[in-house]
Structures are given as C-alpha cells and as structure tokens.
C-alpha cells in the first residue's frame, strides 16, 4: 500500500506538472478568442445602434451634463472617454444601460430623477464599470451563444434575434455577482474622481423605496435589491 501511495503522489505531481506546462501557452491568443470577441462586439454594437439610433435625441443640455461627468470619471481612472459613445433617450423611463462596443444609453427620466451630479455620476460609473469589466459581451455570449451572435452580424439570424438582443440589452439584469462587481468598481471610480459614493447609495436607496416621484422604474426592475446595494456602496 505504501508503494501505491508513493506512486499516487508522483502521479499527482506529474499531472500538476503537465497542467502547469500546458497553461504556460497563451491559448486565448492562439485560438484568437479575444480578437474574435472584440470584432464581434464591434459588429454587434453597430447593428444594435443602427436599430436604436432614431430614439436618440440631438445633443443638448442633458448630453453635455452626462458627457462632462463621464469625461471626469474616465480621466481620473485612466479610461479613454472618447471610446464611450453617449446617447440620450427622451422619455420618463428611469433607466441607463450599456450596449456592445461602448455605447451608453441614458434616459432623461433617470437624469431628471437624480437629485445631484454625485447621484448621476454613481449610475454612470456603474455603467462604465459594466463596459470596463466586459460584462456586456459576457452576458450576451452566455444568454445567446457565439453562433447566434455571429449569425446576427452576418444577417442570417433575422429580425427576431435582433429584437431579442435589444430587449436583453435594455431590460435584462446581469446576474447578482456581476452587478455587485460593477457597483464595487463604480465606488472605486467615484472615489478616485473625488466624488463621495454616498450620492450613489442615496439614489439606490430611493430606488429601493420605490419612490412614486421616480416614474417608470426600469433601472430598479433590472437591478434588484437596491437597499442592500446601497449598504455596501456606503461601505457598511
């Protein structure tokens, strides 16, 4: 039995050695997985945006306000703000979401419901975090799969699949862990910009209370447990 145990240990060490050796190769680069995903994201971004473009309002006061807040968040956190394409939708929906290829949509309903720039910065930082952490593509790949996404970009999938994609991007929540990751990253962005995360927490708390003055609460319906989130954003 002693011999077997010794041989088992050698076998385990050998297996671990093979794994370590194999993992030294950059398979992601070899299989071009990252490049393929980047190209796919760009194409999806173009398709999605061409379908939503008409809802976007002309640049104005709200656009300037959001742009300046995004620019200051990006500058403090070493993010290229020029790559983020900001779009404003004019309606009562309290919503903001990120699309593939760094398109960010903010509804005027959300802009009007925040009480300060700190609150708005919190929401914007959260959406930037989703972009920086590649959550948009992770969600799409998970829910639709590579093949369907590729067929959308080649035009084989048809209008139904594009509709499903648009619905998913604007209304479906990320899973709990990704939301928490984005919140934590957002707090980091806010702090580096010199903005207190308390504004973001206050906004989340108000969403959690389902304040009637906030209108159509899309952002809360896709971001559950706002009160709990407010607590960890405050660092409680």
């Amino acid at each position: 039995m002693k011999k077997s145990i010794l041989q088992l240990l050698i076998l385990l060490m050998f297996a671990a050695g093979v794994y370590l050796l194999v993992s030294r190769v950059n398979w992601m680069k070899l299989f071009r997985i990252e490049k393929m995903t980047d190209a796919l994201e760009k194409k999806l971004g173009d398709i999605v945006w061409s379908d939503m473009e008409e809802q976007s309002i002309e640049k104005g006061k709200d656009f300037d306000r959001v742009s300046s807040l995004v620019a200051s968040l990006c500058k403090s956190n070493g993010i290229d703000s020029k790559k983020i394409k900001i779009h404003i939708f004019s309606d009562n929906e309290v919503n903001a979401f990120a699309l593939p290829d760094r398109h960010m949509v903010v509804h005027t309903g959300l802009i009007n419901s925040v009480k300060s720039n700190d609150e708005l910065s919190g929401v914007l930082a959260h959406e930037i975090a989703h972009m920086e952490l590649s959550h948009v593509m992770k969600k799409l790949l998970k829910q639709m799969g590579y093949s369907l996404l590729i067929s959308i970009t080649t035009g084989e999938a048809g209008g139904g699949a594009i509709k499903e994609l648009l619905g998913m991007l604007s209304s479906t929540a990320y899973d709990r862990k990704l939301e928490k990751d984005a919140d934590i990253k957002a707090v980091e962005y806010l702090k580096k910009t010199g903005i207190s995360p308390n504004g973001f927490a206050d906004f989340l708390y108000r969403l959690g209370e389902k304040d009637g003055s906030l209108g159509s609460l899309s952002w809360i319906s896709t971001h559950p447990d706002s009160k709990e989130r407010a607590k960890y954003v405050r660092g409680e």
Partner: protein
Amino acid sequence: MKTPEIFAYKPTELEAEKASNSYLMSLIAIMVGLPLPIINLLATLFFYIANRKSTYFVRWHCLQALLSQFSLFVLNSMGFWWTVSIIFQEDEHISNPYLAYIITVFIFNIFELGMTISAAIKTRKGQHVSWWFYGSLTQSICKP
C-alpha cells in the same frame, strides 16, 4: 507506464476474453458516454460487479480497469462542471486556465485510451498487464 508481467497462473481462453472485455467496456462507453464522464465509470463498475466472483485473472483486470476509470472520472468531471459553469454563470468565462485544463484532460484521456486499447489486446492474448500505480493498487486490493 505499462509492464507485461507473468501472472500467478496461465489464464484460460474464456478468462482472457473476459479480462479483455473489462477494458473494452470503457472504450464502448467513451463512444456513447461523451460528454458525460460518469458513463465510463459506471460501465466498468457494472462489469466489475458482474465479474466479482469470477477467477483471479478476470477480477484483477476488471479492478485495474475500474480504478483507472475512477481517476479519469475525477479529472473529466471537473472539466465537465467547469464547462457547465461557463455556459450558465455570467461571471465565469473562457479563460487560459480553463483551456489549459481542458487540453490537459484531453491529453490524459488520449493517453489512457491508448493504454486501454493496448491492455485489451494483450489480455485477450492471455498476457498479464500491470500499469504503473494502478497495478500495485490493484495488487494490494485484489487477492487470489
């Protein structure tokens, strides 16, 4: 990894066939069982149970086949559930450690497949084959 040894006695034609079949069970299961890793283990386990009262030569090889399948089962199961988590969990995604693990598991499976085919052929000829580690483990568990 594999050493032909002289067994305590010369097995009969029927024993050689049964012992060879214990290795073939895992090969047949590979064809129907993929990607579920438990099928291979179950196939060799059922074959072992069915032959547990058989002659020493047959029991010995059934057990060696079962033990080797068990370690592959552990490796394959980890790969299987890692893949499932990538498909269903948004925070899991294809990464270099994942690809390296799948390739490692693939290498071990191919290696094991080659060893199994070779063992199936040799035992069918009545030759005894004792694998490194699995042979000594089988020897300590399986008594005449």
